[in-house]
């Protein structure tokens, strides 16, 4: 591994920030934010952070829908953007996502196609869940990415659950990354709760894509600590589908404390640092929230300008 200590610590701070953001955003949602169902992705923070650490401002990145708020960690974005309504910005490589799962993967593949046609060295990383991986449109996107050797890295984020359905109950696989062979592209599985290991694999695949050697599939194994979604403010979903004790077991593998231990062992982090970072991040989020929410939002008049003909 060659990652600078500074970068190692930045990733830690970003993971902590991502975790805390979930609470802040849930707060806002409970106070009547207007964002449909609220979803969180606690326990999966290592993956988006490891990905962002390998991307340039002009690269494209689609986090899984639970990790959209992690975009602040991508070069070009800042915390305040998360609270500002719309993150959409092709210049900074975020093309939105599809609430109808899977339909956005082909869109990001199109970004990679544009990069190839224009002969830039931009790369695209596109994440989706193991449940969404079953959608047909993703198959088509991977077929065309492989056929044209597009600069895109697909990251299948296996958090073991699709809604209330446990992955292992539905599929029996030795190695999900074998799916890559069906497209004639390289595949690799990695412990998605190990931010350093994930960072290294993402770097390898992103570098290959940037060199023009085509797409790849990374399967990042993790666990969804958050519920499927918050049905409505306050009322948490009853999660009778998780086996006794499974959640507790999984918490022991929470990527944040785990990474904290690693950094402490490496002598890069003291208990004081940990406390300080918590406090600083709280302040940053508070500031970002007030900044971001002050930015002008799209109002009715602007919104209806999107109509292509008579309203």
């Amino acid at each position, binding site marked *: 591994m060659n990652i600078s200590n500074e970068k190692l610590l930045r990733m830690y701070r970003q993971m902590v920030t991502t975790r805390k953001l979930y609470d802040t955003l849930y707060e806002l949602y409970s106070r009547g934010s*207007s*964002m*449909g*169902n609220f979803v969180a992705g606690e326990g999966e923070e290592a993956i988006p952070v490891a990905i962002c650490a390998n991307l340039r401002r002009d690269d494209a990145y689609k986090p899984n829908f639970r990790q959209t708020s992690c975009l602040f960690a991508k070069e070009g974005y800042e915390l305040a953007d998360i609270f500002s309504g719309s993150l959409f910005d092709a210049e900074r490589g975020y093309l939105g996502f*599809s*609430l*109808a*799962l*899977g*339909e956005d993967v082909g869109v990001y593949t199109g970004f990679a196609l544009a990069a190839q046609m224009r002969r830039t060295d931009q790369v695209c990383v596109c994440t989706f869940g193991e*449940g*969404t991986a*079953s*959608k*047909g*449109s993703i198959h088509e996107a991977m077929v065309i990415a492989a056929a044209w050797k597009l600069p895109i890295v697909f990251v299948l984020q296996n958090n073991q659950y*699709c*809604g*209330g*359905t446990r992955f292992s109950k*539905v599929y029996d696989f030795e190695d999900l990354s074998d799916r890559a062979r069906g497209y004639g592209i390289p595949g690799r599985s990695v412990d998605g709760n190990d931010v350093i290991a994930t960072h290294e694999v993402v770097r390898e695949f992103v570098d290959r894509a940037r060199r023009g050697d085509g797409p790849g599939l990374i399967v990042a194994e993790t666990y969804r600590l958050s519920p*499927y*979604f918050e*049905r409505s403010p306050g009322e948490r*979903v009853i999660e009778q*589908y998780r086996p006794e004790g499974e959640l507790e077991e999984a918490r022991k593998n929470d990527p944040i404390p785990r990474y904290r231990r690693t950094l402490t062992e490496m002598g890069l982090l003291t208990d004081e640092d940990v406390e300080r970072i918590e406090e600083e991040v709280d302040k940053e989020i508070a500031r970002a929230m007030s900044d971001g929410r002050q930015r002008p939002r*799209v*109002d*009715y008049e602007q*919104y*209806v300008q*999107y*109509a*292509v*003909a*008579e*309203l």
Partner: protein
Amino acid sequence: MAEKVEAQVTMLDCGAAINAAFREEMRRDERVVMWGEDVITMESPTAGADLCTRGLFEEFGGDRIRDTPVVEAAIIETAIGAGLAGLRPIAHVMSGGFQMGCFDPIFARLGTAYQEWKHPGTLPVVVMASVLGGAAKGADHALSPESLFMHSPGLKVVMPSTAYDTKGLLKTAIRDDFPVMFYTHREVMIREEKEPIPDDEYLIPFGQADVKRTGADATIVTYSGMVLRALAAAEELAEDGIGAEVVDLRTLVPMDVDTIVESARKTGRLLIVHEAMKRAGAAGEIAMRVTEAAPDVVMALKTPIRRLAAANVALPTSLRIERRLVPQVADIVAATRDMVEGSNTGNG
């Protein structure tokens, strides 16, 4: 007497009514089977969906009710194959918006191909989904897709507005030998007040609209969640002495044109209301059917047929904006009043 009635009905909400319909039909006919995402684990975001399927797995077991992966196209296509093979599948797709992702299977396979194949037998498939409007869930969740599937030759389209109608129509759908699109609506599913549902079995035939409220001055034709808003509007209008008759179509295919015509003949005014986007929405079809069935009535209307529907722009994830794009009670009141008193420009 009151006692007697009590003995014959049970107060149920829509989810419980659906659950009862499923249970009765699955007991009655072992060929009735169902699958979809999380129909067993009941984590579906479809409003109230957990109530709909609760306890069915325990009673009927894993051969007849199954959870699927996120494969909407396969959910529909396997239902077609199983239906052709002699089962009577109920295929669950969480929301009307997600049906865009399995459109060919629904529109072109289920609704078209078996006619083209000159398939001699039956194709008893019910596709169930919820329209999740009114909560700024965005187009993918909140789309009301009825006009799209009305355009498929082989699909019946059912969109009830009460727990009572839902149960009676769902049982009819499950017994139908050909494809039925069945839509519940979030605002119907989450209603607080329960309805008296007869304990004895009842079925409601397709193609029979229901006059949910009578009135002399204007006819409001609508269906699904918008019936609730139309009734609230009629309530308000009544205070101003305007009598609005609310016709709940209940099924769009087949469509009960006669009931609309009779009402329009009486009131002389026809307002068509739906939640879906106006352009190429169902209102145009309803208006043409009335015109074709009773040109004399249409020519004699006091004011031209008018429609009220969502603006021609994507459903937003902002409640503030959604409320201005999709017809609200106040909009229905204003449009009706305008037709009765107003300029009669007919611009809906």
